């Protein structure tokens, strides 16, 4: 237990992670289409300001500005050769902010998806994926990240490839997936299947869970399903602040700080240990979440009805787990 996150988890029964990166940077002037990771070099002051805003709102963990910092994603900006370097800077800036916080704050090196589909359906092979993730992992490690933080993954193959890469970099890690399609990931993985996959990894994450997706209610249903599998591993909840709306040329998420405070408390009651936000979660949301987590008592595990009453309806009738699972697929090929 030599890493900063495991140490915190030994003394606390909940931790708060950070909020949005993209939405915040957008509000600081990032243009549509530009790579946020290039700002690590061009506007280090703004990146530090982003990290600092999470720390000031009470976050125990913040993610580095390196979500799209792998070679597959940076290729778009002609910066694929700089994956390690830009990731390193993102972590160095994080180190500066965390070390000056005056309390233990975890710098989590963000690792997002490659954006490619795995073979045989797509072009990405396991070997190449491991290589891409390993390169970024080494950069984040060199920059002083305490742990690595895989997020918004849809394909189990990609989650496993990243885990293997993090083992090569000898780094502890956390990893979340995005459950945005009828309660499953885009590739059809259920929350129960994710728990199963995580426990079978040779180097399982310190904590696992869900991020992004389609709103707070769905995310909490996923957390309930994780918990129902009986896992002892800490669960992460990092949901979006509502639904994106378009106002005067920029995107605004409609979830209020009050709603996110409600979400944070329900997430903890549902079984999550690490609670944060994703897209649209601004410092004011984080402050409200932190306040609620500190001041409000724990309650019993919420029911699905209590979740929808507090936060709104689900995007699909079922999440593919339990007895109430989705309709069966058509019978396979008739033979003979």
């Amino acid at each position, binding site marked *: 237990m030599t890493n900063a996150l495991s140490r915190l988890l030994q003394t606390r029964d909940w931790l708060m992670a950070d909020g949005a990166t993209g939405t915040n940077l957008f509000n600081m002037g990032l243009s*549509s289409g*530009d790579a946020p990771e290039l700002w690590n070099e061009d506007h280090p002051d703004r990146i530090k300001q982003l990290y600092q805003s999470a720390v000031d709102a009470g976050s125990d963990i913040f993610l580095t500005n390196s979500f799209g910092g792998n070679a597959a994603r940076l*290729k778009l900006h002609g910066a694929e050769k700089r994956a390690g370097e830009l990731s390193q800077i993102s972590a160095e800036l994080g180190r500066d902010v965390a070390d000056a916080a005056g309390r233990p704050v975890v710098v989590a090196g963000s690792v997002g998806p490659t*954006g490619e589909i795995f073979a045989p359906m797509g072009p990405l092979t396991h070997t190449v994926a491991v290589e891409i993730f390993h390169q970024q992992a080494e950069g984040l490690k060199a920059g002083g990240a305490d742990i690595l933080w895989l997020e918004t993954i849809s394909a189990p193959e990609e989650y496993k490839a990243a885990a293997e890469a993090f083992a090569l970099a000898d780094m502890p890690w956390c990893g979340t997936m995005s459950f945005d*399609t009828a309660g499953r990931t885009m590739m059809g993985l259920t929350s129960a299947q994710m728990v199963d996959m995580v426990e079978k990894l040779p180097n399982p994450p310190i904590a696992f869970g869900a991020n992004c997706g389609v709103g707070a209610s769905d995310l909490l249903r996923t957390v309930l399903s994780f918990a129902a599998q009986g896992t002892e591993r800490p669960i992460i909840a990092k949901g979006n602040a509502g639904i*994106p709306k378009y106002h005067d040329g920029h995107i605004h998420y409609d979830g209020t700080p009050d709603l996110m405070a409600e979400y944070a408390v329900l997430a903890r009651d549902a079984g999550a240990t690490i609670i944060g936000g994703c897209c649209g979660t601004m410092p004011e949301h984080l402050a409200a979440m932190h306040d609620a987590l500190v001041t409000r008592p724990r309650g019993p595990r919420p029911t699905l009805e209590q979740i929808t009453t507090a936060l709104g309806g689900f995007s699909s009738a079922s999440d593919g787990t339990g007895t109430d699972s989705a309709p069966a697929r*058509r019978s*396979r*090929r008739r033979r003979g």
Partner: protein
Amino acid sequence: MSDQEDDLILSELDDEELVQQMFDDLYDGMREEIEESVNILLERGWIPYDILTKALVGGMTIVGHDFRDGILFVPEVLLAANAMKGGMAILKPLLAETGAPRMGKMVIGTVKGDIHDIGKNLVSMMMEGAGFEVVDLGINNAVEAYLEALETEQPDILGMSALLTTTMPYMKVVIDTLIEQGKRDDYIVLVGGAPLNEEFGKAIGADAYCRDAAVAVETAKDFIARKHNQLSA
């Protein structure tokens, strides 16, 4: 789901059974079987357009509905689309020769700054599966790339995709440019991408937001039908 010996002889099925079998084989993503069945129907004198609409499009419609309903997911749909492509590769030159009616044409691409193409690829495949001609511009398209393609391809539909909060607003840049140049009404503009919703589609001036590839196909058919009605009115 049995793995028993495959003693199903496609050529021994009558037309109706064979078409049903093709629905199943598309569903299961069996490309070679689909290619074989298309060739059998051609030998039996089916016109290419009927094979496309009755067998392939019919089968892909089932796939689309189960995708929409959360029964099939991306990997299965990609396999089905791959099987469909196998059949289409045989039919495409024949369709052109026989002057078969066109469903419509779409230019599609992911907007500037966004390299996500999974959703866009699904839409392309399902649109082709529904008989549309699709010109795929790939990822990271600036407004100029869209305009150039619209000029050279003369499509009925422009499709734009974005997956990131940071790239979604670029769709409006493209639509605003079309308005400035007086070309907006020449095309049906459909937008899609995980973070979007109907309200966003309206706010930026698109004709419709499509939640997923299956909805995109239904919406495209709907708009094309309306366009034809207007022309004949």
